[in-house]
C-alpha cells in the first residue's frame, strides 16, 4: 500500500477527487480493522460531523491548505466532550470540558480529529509500554517479533506509519516525538520551546514539553506546524512572535550549508548499523552542497542526569492534582483523607509514573534541593551554552536520533536506565529548548528504520524543515511502508 502524504491528500481534496467525509470514513475503517492498539479512543461520529462541515466549507469556497484532512491527536490533548486519558488509569474515565489551544488552532484550519492515540502514561516512557491501555505494535515489526513503536508518542507514530491517519500530533519532553518517528520511519518535529501552546496539553515536565507534528514528510510537517503553532495568551511560556509560514524555505538550496558533527555522538552505546546509515545520510548532504564541520558538545554526557532530575521534579508537582478529589479515578476503599490520596494514587498511577514522582519529590526535598535540582539547572545552562557555542560554526547539528533501532517489546521494561538511554541524543535538545527533527535515513539489515537527527538554532524551524525536505527530494526512505502493509522492505 503506497503512502499518501498530507500534501497529496490536500491536493486530492482540493481537486475534488475525494471528499473529506470519504477520506475520513476510509481512515476510520482502517483504524477499525487494525490491530496495532494505536488508538485509545476513536471519535467516529464526531469525525464524520467535522468532515461534513469541512466539505460544506469547501463547497462555499473555503480553501485553507489542510481543510478537511483527518488526523490523529495524541491522547495528551484535552478535547471537549471526548475522553482524555493521557494513557493513565487515573484519567481513564476523564472527559475534558474544554479543548486544548493547539487542537483549537488545528480545527480553525479545518482539520478533522479521527481519534486519540495511545501513549506512555503521562508521556513517561520510550516504548509505549507504560500505557494503561496496553502496548502499541510497531508496524515495522513482524509476526515473529513484536517491536515497540517508541514513546511516548508511540500510538501517533504507529497510526501514521500503519496509515491509519496521514499525520498525527505528538509531544516531546525528552524525545517523545523524534524517537518514535525514528522507530516507525516518520518525520517528527519538536519545535522550539514555546512555539505551540501548552494550554490543554496535560503537563509532564512544563519547562520541556512541546507539541509537534508527526508526518511522512518534512513538507507535511511544515504544513501541519503552520496550523499548530502560534502565540496563546493562556500559556505564559508561549512565544509572542509573529506567525510564520514554515513552508517558505522548503525549496531553498543547501549549497554552503554547514553541518556540525559533534564528536560526542560517536559513543559506546551506538549501534554500528545506525552509525553507518547516519554517515551515509550525511554524505548525501555533502552531495547537496553542504560542508561538514567538527563541533563539540562537551557537556552532553550531563544531559541525561540533568534531565532525570528536572523532568521528574516538575512531574512530581504537576501530577499532584490527580488526587481523586475532584475528577479522575478515586479508590473505592479509604478510611480517611490520607488513605483517599494514598489509595487513589497508588491504584491510579503505573509503576514508571510512581518511580518518577518519587525521584522528583526526592530531588526537591529540603536538604537535597541544592545537590539535585539546583545542580541540574546549572547543568542545563551549560548544555544550552554548548549549543550556542557550536552554532557559531554550523547551521545545523546532525547525528543519530537513537542509539539503536526499535527493540522488542518487553526487552527493556525491567531496566529503566537502559530504557532512559534511548533518549541520550534527543534530551539535550529539550533542555536547551531548541527545534529538532528526526527523518527517515534508511534501514538496517533486518529492515528496521533508522532516524537522522537534526537540530537548528532557536526558532529556525523553517530552515530545519528546508534541510529535511531537500534530503527527502533525493531519497525515498520516507516513502517506504512496512512489509506488514505490503511494503517493499
Amino acid at each position, binding site marked *: 500500500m503506497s503512502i499518501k502524504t498530507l500534501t497529496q491528500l490536500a491536493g486530492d481534496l482540493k481537486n475534488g477527487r475525494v471528499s473529506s467525509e470519504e477520506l475520513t470514513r476510509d481512515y476510520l475503517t482502517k483504524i477499525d480493522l487494525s490491530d496495532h492498539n494505536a488508538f485509545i479512543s476513536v471519535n467516529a461520529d464526531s469525525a464524520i460531523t467535522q468532515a461534513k462541515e469541512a466539505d460544506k466549507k469547501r463547497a462555499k469556497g473555503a480553501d485553507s491548505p489542510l481543510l478537511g484532512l483527518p488526523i490523529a491527536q495524541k491522547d495528551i490533548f484535552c478535547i471537549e466532550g471526548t475522553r482524555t486519558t493521557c494513557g493513565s488509569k487515573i484519567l481513564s474515565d476523564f472527559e475534558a470540558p474544554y479543548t486544548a489551544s493547539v487542537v483549537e488552532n488545528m480545527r480553525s484550519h479545518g482539520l478533522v480529529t479521527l481519534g486519540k492515540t495511545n501513549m506512555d502514561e503521562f508521556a513517561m516512557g520510550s516504548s509505549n509500554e507504560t500505557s494503561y491501555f496496553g502496548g502499541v505494535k510497531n508496524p515495522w515489526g513482524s509476526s515473529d517479533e513484536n517491536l515497540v513503536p517508541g514513546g511516548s508518542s508511540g500510538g501517533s507514530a504507529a497510526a501514521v506509519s500503519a496509515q491509519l491517519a496521514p499525520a498525527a500530533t505528538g509531544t516531546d519532553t525528552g524525545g517523545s516525538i523524534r524517537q518514535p518517528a525514528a522507530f516507525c520511519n516518520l518525520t517528527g518535529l519538536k519545535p522550539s520551546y514555546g512555539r505551540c501552546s501548552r494550554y490543554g496539553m496535560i503537563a509532564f515536565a512544563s519547562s520541556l514539553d512541546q507539541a509537534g507534528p508527526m508526518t511522512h514528510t518534512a513538507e507535511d510537517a511544515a504544513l501541519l506546524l503552520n496550523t499548530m503553532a502560534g502565540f496563546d495568551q493562556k500559556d505564559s511560556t508561549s512565544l509572542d512572535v509573529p506567525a510564520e509560514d514554515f513552508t517558505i524555505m522548503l525549496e531553498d538550496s543547501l549549497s554552503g550549508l554547514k553541518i556540525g558533527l559533534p564528536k560526542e555522538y560517536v559513543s559506546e552505546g551506538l549501534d554500528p548499523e545506525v552509525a553507518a546509515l547516519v554517515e551515509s545520510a550525511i554524505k548525501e548532504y555533502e552531495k547537496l552542497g553542504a560542508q561538514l564541520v567538527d563541533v563539540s558538545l562537551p557537556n552532553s554526557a550531563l544531559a541525561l542526569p540533568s534531565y532525570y532530575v528536572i523532568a521528574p521534579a516538575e512531574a512530581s508537582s504537576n501530577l499532584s492534582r490527580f488526587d481523586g*478529589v475532584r475528577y479522575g479515578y478515586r479508590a473505592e476503599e479509604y478510611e480517611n483523607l490520607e488513605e483517599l490520596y494514598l489509595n487513589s494514587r497508588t491504584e491510579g498511577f503505573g509503576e514508571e509514573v510512581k518511580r518518577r514522582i518519587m525521584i522528583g*519529590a526526592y530531588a526537591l526535598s529540603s536538604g537535597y534541593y541544592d545537590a539535585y535540582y539546583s545542580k541540574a539547572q546549572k547543568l542545563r545552562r551549560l548544555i544550552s551554552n554548548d549549543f550556542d557555542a557550536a552554532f557559531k560554526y554550523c547551521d545545523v547539528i546532525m547525528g543519530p536520533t537513537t542509539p539503536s533501532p526499535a527493540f522488542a517489546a518487553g526487552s527493556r521494561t525491567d531496566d529503566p536506565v537502559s530504557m532512559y538511554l534511548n533518549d541520550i541524543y534527543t534530551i539535550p535538545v529539550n533542555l536547551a529548548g531548541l527545534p529538532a527533527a528526526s527523518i527517515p535515513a534508511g534501514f538496517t539489515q533486518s529492515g528496521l528504520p533508522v532516524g537522522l537527527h537534526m537540530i537548528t538554532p532557536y526558532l529556525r524551524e523553517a530552515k530545519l524543515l528546508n534541510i529535511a525536505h531537500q534530503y527527502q527530494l533525493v531519497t525515498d526512505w520516507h516513502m517506504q511502508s512496512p512489509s506488514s502493509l505490503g511494503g517493499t522492505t
Partner: protein
Amino acid sequence: MFTWDKNWEVVIGLEVHTQLQTKSKIFSGSSIAYGAEPNTQASAVDIALPGVLPVMNLEAARLAVKFGLAIDAHINKRNVFARKNYFYPDLPKGYQISQMELPIVGLGALEIKTESGTKTIGITRAHLEEDAGKSLHENFHGQTGIDLNRAGTPLLEIVSEPDMRSPAEAVAYLRKLHSLVRYIEICDGNMQEGSFRCDANVSVRPVGQKEYGTRTELKNINSFRFVERAIEYEVERQIDMLEEGGEIVQETRLYDADKHETRSMRSKEEAHDYRYFPDPDLPPMVLEDSFIEEVRITLPELPDAKKARFETELGLNEADAQVLTADREIADYFESTADATSADTKTVANWMTGELFANLNKAELEISDSPISSAQLAKLLDRIADKTLSGNTGKKVFAALWDQEGEVDDIIDAKGLKQITDTGAIEAIVDDVIASCPDQVAQFKEGNEKVIGFLTGQVMQRSKGKANPQMANQMLREKLS
C-alpha cells in the same frame, strides 16, 4: 493592661495575609467577589483541570508594588513565582503558587506609635501568592464539602521583622498596616471575611540575651483583640514553661478565642516539606521602571504625611490629627467637610470626634455608612458660624439630620430654631426680664457676677432658646451697668 515579668523580653513578628482588591483572580479570569454560591466562581484553571495553565493578573502586581512604594521598600524588578507543594482538598493543584526566593517587595519599614514614642518596625518582604479554597464541614453528614470560589484569590503576604516587643506593639503595628492597606486601596481590610489575616511568631528570652528564644507560630487570629489576647496568652505560657525549667517546642499553635488558649497544631518535626521550586509555568516577572512609576503616581497621600499636614497646615492638635487620619474615609470626610464650610477646622474636628463619632459608635456604623453626609455637616457648621444656630440648637439639628428628617435649612425652619439676632426683639425680652427679676438685678448691681448667667438663662427661656446668648448677655450688662 497586660504586664509580664520584666526579666523576660518578648519578641514578636507578624505575617499578614492581605487579600488584594483585584476584579479577578491572580492566575485566572474568575471573579473574586465574596459570598457567591459555592463553586460558581471556579474556572477550569481554579479547579486545576488537567492541562490548564496560570496567567499572571498584572493588577495584582500593581497593587503589590503600590504597597512596596508606600512602605518605601525595595521593589524586586525581577521576581519569581515558586510552587509550594502539599496535599489538601481545598488546594486543587496540590501546590500553591507563591513567591519564595525573589518576592516582589523586599525590605521596607513601618513606623508605629508606642508609649515611649515612635518605633520603626522592619518589613522583611511582601510576596504575592494565591489563596486556597475552603473546606466546609457543616451539612455534609460526615463528609467534607469543598468550595473553590476563594481558590486563586490574590494575596499579598506581608512579613515583618521580629521587631515588636509587646503584644501592644504587635497590635499597633497591625492597626497601622490595616490602615495603610485600606488607605492605598489594595485591600478592603475586612477581617470577618478573611481579607486581612494575621499569624504571629512569638518567643521570649531573658533580658540581655542576644539569641532569640524558640518561637511558636500562632494561627487563626482574626481580630485585633484576638491578636493581642493570643499573644498575651502565649507570652505567659512560654514564660511559665521556661521558669518551670521546661523547654519551648517550635510548633504551630492554634488560638481558640472561646477558651482563650493556644494549642498545638503541629510540631516542627511534623512540619511539611513544601518542596519549593520555581514555577516552570510562569516566567520570572520583570517590572519595567515605567510600570513602577505609573504605580507611584496612583499613590495617595499616606497617613503619616496627612497627619503632619493636618497639624501644620490645618492647625489641628496631634490627638485630633491622629484620629482624623487613622482611616482614609474619615480623613476624606473631614477634608470635604472643612473645604465646604466657613467654620474653622478645629470646629469641624470637634464636631466629628464628638457628636459624629459618638453617634457612629453607638449605632456601630462606619463613617462610609454615616446618615449625615459631609456636605450636610458642613451646612450645619455654616449655620452655627453665621449665628443662625447656637451650639445647642446645632445639636438639635444634628439629631434631626441623623434621623434623616431633611436638609439643614428645612429642619431649622420646621423646628423654628432660627436664632433671634434682631436687637429690638432681644431688647424687649431683656427689659421684660429686668423688670420681673428685681432681686437678681439688685444682686448683680452689688457685684455678684454669677447672677448674669441666671438672667441670660431667663432671656433664653423666654425666647424659647432662639435668642443669641452672647447678644443677650451683652445687652443685660449694658442695661445694668
